[in-house]
């Protein structure tokens, strides 16, 4: 007879089930309601469908984050908090000069490289993605530094 799953394993499986089922229910439930409201006009409903998809992914990500966080021991939690704090601060400081360089001549350098793709929305997305990537990178470097210092 196979061994009974432990309390932790049952909690993990339950959380994964809640994440998956919740995401599916949010996505398909919201899509059904939105399409009914817009009388199956997919073009008109597109922004709301995208929002429903985001909500579904956000639900799964939030539960996934909770599962991951609760499985970390206290030192791992401390490393992540510290590395995110240091990494985020460093990323903001490091990306500031880049932003100022881009702003020279009214952002002419960036506009030259972007050409006709350079809409305000694209610039905003570039800035957001750039900062997030810089934070992730700096956070990883800070975490690696922490581990090296503790070896």
């Amino acid at each position, binding site marked *: 007879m196979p061994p009974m799953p432990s309390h932790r394993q049952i909690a993990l499986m339950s959380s994964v089930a809640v994440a998956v089922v919740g995401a599916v229910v949010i996505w398909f439930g919201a899509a059904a309601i939105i399409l009914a409201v817009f009388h199956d006009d997919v073009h008109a409903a597109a922004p709301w469908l995208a929002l429903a998809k985001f909500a579904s992914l956000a639900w799964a990500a939030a539960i996934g984050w909770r599962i991951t966080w609760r499985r970390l*021991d*206290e*030192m*791992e939690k*401390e490393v992540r908090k510290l590395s995110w704090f240091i990494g985020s601060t460093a990323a903001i400081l490091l990306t500031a000069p880049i932003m100022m360089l881009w702003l020279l001549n009214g952002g002419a350098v960036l506009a030259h490289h972007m050409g006709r793709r350079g809409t305000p929305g694209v610039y905003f997305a570039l800035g957001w993605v750039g900062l997030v990537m810089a934070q992730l990178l700096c956070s990883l470097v800070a975490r690696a530094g922490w581990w090296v*210092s*503790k070896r």
Partner: protein
Amino acid sequence: MKNRLKALRAERGWSQAELAERLDVSRQSVNAIETGKYDPSLPLAFRIARLFGLPIEAIFEDA
């Protein structure tokens, strides 16, 4: 902060991994605590003390 964790673990013949499993932490955490590179939280210090059946101050001392 100094501690006697390594000596206490050795007395019982436990590996770092075994102690980590008993304390529900990673082996890296046990290693960092033993080498004095990481000070455990008060709840973890109590768990360690209970596991070895000793008061906290018999395991940890302020360096």
